């Protein structure tokens, strides 16, 4: 057993959205359960969808609510049962978002959003993906491994959304047994596509080490969550970041000091 997860995450409005007075369409949610299991979800509401800010909020909140209830008094014991839990969680999240859509009298596409889900405990690491989010882990051997990669849609610059009719076919789940399929996880990061051009090395399509190395050290150092959150906001709204992306951006960082 190593130390408990430390986690910090934030979504901020991009400079292009500030200009057009569009709300932040990104959302994130995260928690560490009493059992020590880390749950995190990030979502990017489609720019062209009228209520996608609500869609992304619902998607991350419902995902965590479902996972929390499911994992409260049981824990899947193998790859298959983890995979089932992940897929059911995704389908139920999708149903709930669509229900909200219907209640509010809107069209599903108005709530279009991506969804990246992460679950991690001492032994397991699980990722779920629809859309163009990105997630990577740093192992205790200092390897950086992408565990959720952006999906390209049919058209240039398009991707898939939780509200798509074929969403369940496009959703990709990955289940890793730590120490077996992947090295023991020290830190992990999940983000929306506002940050991926900094995070992914264009030539190798691998996690860009100068981006991740400093950031992956952050969660292990966190003693005070409020300060960490403030500094994460400052980082995400800095001129340096804004010079490279005008989109909304979300970053969730989690790590274990003991590893």
């Amino acid at each position, binding site marked *: 057993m190593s130390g408990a997860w430390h986690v910090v995450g934030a979504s901020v409005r991009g400079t292009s959205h500030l200009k057009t007075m569009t709300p932040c369409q990104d959302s994130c949610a995260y928690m560490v359960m009493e059992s020590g299991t880390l749950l995190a979800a990030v979502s990017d509401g489609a720019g062209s969808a009228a209520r996608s800010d609500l869609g992304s909020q619902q998607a991350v909140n419902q995902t965590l609510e479902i996972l929390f209830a499911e994992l409260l008094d049981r824990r899947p014991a193998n790859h298959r049962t983890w995979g089932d839990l992940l897929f059911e969680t995704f389908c139920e999240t999708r149903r709930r978002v669509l229900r909200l859509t219907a209640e509010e009298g809107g069209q599903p596409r108005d709530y279009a959003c991506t969804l990246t889900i992460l679950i991690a405990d001492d032994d397991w690491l699980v990722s779920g993906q629809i859309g163009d989010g990105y997630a990577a882990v740093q192992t205790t051997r200092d390897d950086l491994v992408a565990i959720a990669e952006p999906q390209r849609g049919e058209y240039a610059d398009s991707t898939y959304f939780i509200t798509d009719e074929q969403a369940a076919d496009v959703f990709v789940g990955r289940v890793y047994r730590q120490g077996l399929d992947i090295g023991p996880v020290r830190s992990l990061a999940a983000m929306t596509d506002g940050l991926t051009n*900094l995070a992914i090395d264009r030539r190798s399509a691998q996690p860009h080490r*100068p981006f991740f190395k*400093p*950031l992956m050290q952050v969660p292990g150092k966190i003693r005070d969550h409020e300060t960490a959150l403030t500094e994460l906001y*400052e980082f995400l709204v800095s001129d*340096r970041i804004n010079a*490279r992306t005008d989109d909304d951006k979300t970053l969730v960082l989690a790590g274990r000091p003991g590893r």
Partner: protein
Amino acid sequence: MSYFDQAEFADNPEPRCPVVLCLDTSGSMKGDPIAQLNEALTQFAAELKGDSLASLRVEVAVVTFGGAVRALGVHADDSGEDTGFDSARAFTTVDLFSPPELKAGGGTPMGDAVRKSLELLRGRKEIYKNNDLDYFRPWMFLITDGKPTDSWESAAEQARLEDARKGLLFFGIGVEGAEMETLAKFTPENRPPMKLRGLAFGELFQWLSRSLSAVAHSKVGDQIPLPPVGWAEVDTSS
């Protein structure tokens, strides 16, 4: 200390070219010389900021020796403050560079300044390595108008050795009154110290800014020709 104190590499993953300006601020620099040096530093910053790639790649640290030896803050937030030779704090990329106002006074502890500058560079390279950042061969600029008032022989030896094993590029500049034979002990044989004409700090720093622009636009490891001032070609590999 901030949780995101090394995020400078996350939001700017460009390879770095670290430059230490090791500047004599002893009593003899008082008056015109220090005023001209300050002005030259300001122009240097303005000129390099105009080159957007160099702004993100060239990192500057300012070490002064005039009585005490200090690594001064060069970031807008801490310009002129004593950084305590903290390699994480003493360097700032040119886009955020805010030159400190230098004041002259005291003796010329050049040996100590060079020794600590070399240490500062070593620390900086460690930080690059820890963050998997590529870097160019560091530059060190020693500018003096006198002779060391401390023991300097071992520092000179270290500088030459470090340059010989390509750990850095060492340039020695003597201002009127400098003891050039002593300065020559710090510099490699193929790059003897240069004597500054009058107080032409402006031209010197303009040359430096152009040279660094050329380095910043090259690939790590490339041989690049520098603008003419005595040396023809310099190897920039780390």
